[in-house]
């Protein structure tokens, strides 16, 4: 049965259009258009100093990309980085969240302290750690040498084997607070009665954690993990400031930008960017579908 819309409904719908248009227009201009352009450029041989003149090259850029060992090295770096960082951030975040959730004095101090790495701009964190990582005068080598963990100064950001580890350590330091807060929010939504019942039943704490807490926060945890993984896959600032364009730590974004801006190869750089975008898009679909259950239930 077709329902005639009342004046009220029509008025509101017209208003909705007017209210949303400006925002969407800006979004189209700032995100939609540049994205389409980038994808378009992937199929050309455009160059940065004369970006206006180019010709189509079909899939040539993608073909070269597929055969480029440096590209695949960057892909591997990014995936390794994402996997290790997110794992550590989740575990440490869980530990911190559980600590914050325990109603013991000192909680406020911990929460404040934990927010500091998050508050510090990424570039600043990178430089702070860069200085701590300094092979000759850095404080990390000093402490580790003194304590006896290492026997000679390590070149944290210089050595091919250690560089990625160094980047991961900084990312974990910086982002664990965020994970901790997300997990804490999920923990605080759990009804207290469950724990009281468990206490009455005399279930030991570790078992309560594994069999009760963990399963209950799993959905929120999954969403947080996917969200963080998405962020980790597109990382740029940290590796760039710590180690520049170095092969050993270049993420896909670093590689793409290098080709784009430093090598001025817009076509090739755009192809790499597009590839990264597709990877992220697939993951985003996973994220949105995973979170959609919650979303639609409103």
């Amino acid at each position, binding site marked *: 049965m077709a329902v005639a819309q009342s004046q009220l409904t029509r008025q509101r719908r017209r208003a909705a259009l007017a209210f*949303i248009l400006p*925002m969407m227009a800006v979004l189209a201009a700032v995100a939609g258009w540049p994205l389409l352009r980038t994808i378009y450029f992937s199929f050309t041989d455009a160059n940065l100093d004369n970006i206006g003149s180019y010709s189509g090259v079909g899939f040539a850029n993608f073909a070269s990309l597929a055969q480029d060992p440096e590209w695949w090295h960057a892909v591997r770096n990014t995936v390794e980085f994402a996997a290790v960082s997110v794992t550590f951030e989740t575990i440490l975040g869980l530990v911190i969240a559980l600590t914050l959730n325990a109603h013991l004095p000192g909680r406020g101090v911990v929460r404040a302290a934990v927010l500091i790495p998050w508050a510090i701009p990424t570039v600043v964190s990178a430089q702070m750690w860069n200085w701590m990582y300094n092979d000759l005068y850095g404080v990390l080598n000093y402490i580790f040498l003194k304590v006896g963990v290492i026997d000679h100064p390590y070149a944290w950001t210089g050595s091919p084997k250690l560089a990625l580890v160094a980047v991961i350590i900084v990312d974990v330091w910086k982002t664990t607070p965020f994970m901790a807060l997300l997990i804490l929010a999920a923990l605080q939504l759990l009804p207290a009665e469950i724990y009281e019942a468990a206490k009455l039943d005399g279930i030991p704490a570790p078992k309560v954690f594994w069999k009760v807490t963990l399963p209950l926060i799993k959905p929120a945890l999954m969403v947080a993990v996917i969200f963080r993984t998405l962020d980790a896959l597109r990382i740029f*600032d940290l590796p760039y400031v710590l180690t520049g364009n170095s092969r050993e730590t270049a993420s896909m974004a670093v590689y793409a930008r290098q080709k784009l801006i430093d090598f001025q190869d817009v076509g090739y750089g755009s192809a790499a960017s597009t590839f990264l*975008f597709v990877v992220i898009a697939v993951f985003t679909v996973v994220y949105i579908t995973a979170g959609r259950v919650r979303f639609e239930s409103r």
Partner: protein
Amino acid sequence: MKARKIIGSTLFYLLVTAIVVYTIFPFYWAIVSSLKEGSALYKVDFLPPKPEWGNYTAIFKEQPFGKNILNSLVVAVSVVVISLALSVTASYALGRINFRGRTPLLLIVLSVSMFPQVAVLSGMFELVSWLGIYDRLWSLSLSYMILTLPFTTWVLTTFMRELPKELEEAALVDGAKPLTIITKVFLPLLGPAMATTGLLAFIAAWNEFMFAITFTLSNERRTVPVAIALISGASRFELPWGRVMAASVIVTVPLVILVLIFQRRIVSGLTAGAVKG
């Protein structure tokens, strides 16, 4: 039994101490390092032998750090103001008006916040050159919208949804048109929400690096993150780290203070954006 409790408590407080040291030490070390000049940097002293402020004056004299801070401020404030203005009305529509295509639109907004920045870089570069705003702050005010707009829209939509329906209906009965409802009824209630959202968007804009380093060329146009990444020492032979740390401290201390003051709001704003979404 009591021994167990004592051990348990001690372990707990050891854990707490470990966490606090782990999170704060790098910041502490930055402050200490910033107070060391010249050769003092070559030694590792956990407390500065004699606090020296030379680094702090140097970054303002040797490079236009003051201008850098101003640039960051101008860009961040303009971006936040524009984003909030665009988002307020959009979030009302997205949060409270039922229309066809609402869900897809919300998903589009959400997905834009997932874009890798580099994916729009070449397109944005072309746009910036075409508009003639390369090496101008406008290039940043424009490009940063891709970061802040989806965020402010999404978070404000969540806040808008939570406002009571009966309040809106009372206004309708009183004869309020949609825009009036937003400005005269809802906006006064959204003060804290706007402040939190604005603050988080400000922090995101303030921290941005990739667009800043790509679209600015001259020292005078640089924003703070770029400046800190590129600070050089007093001479070729001097470590720049004292200066870098001084710059870092200057930039970080206000942010840390802001974050500590607005702790609760920030936590709820962040989780509203992520967990609920």
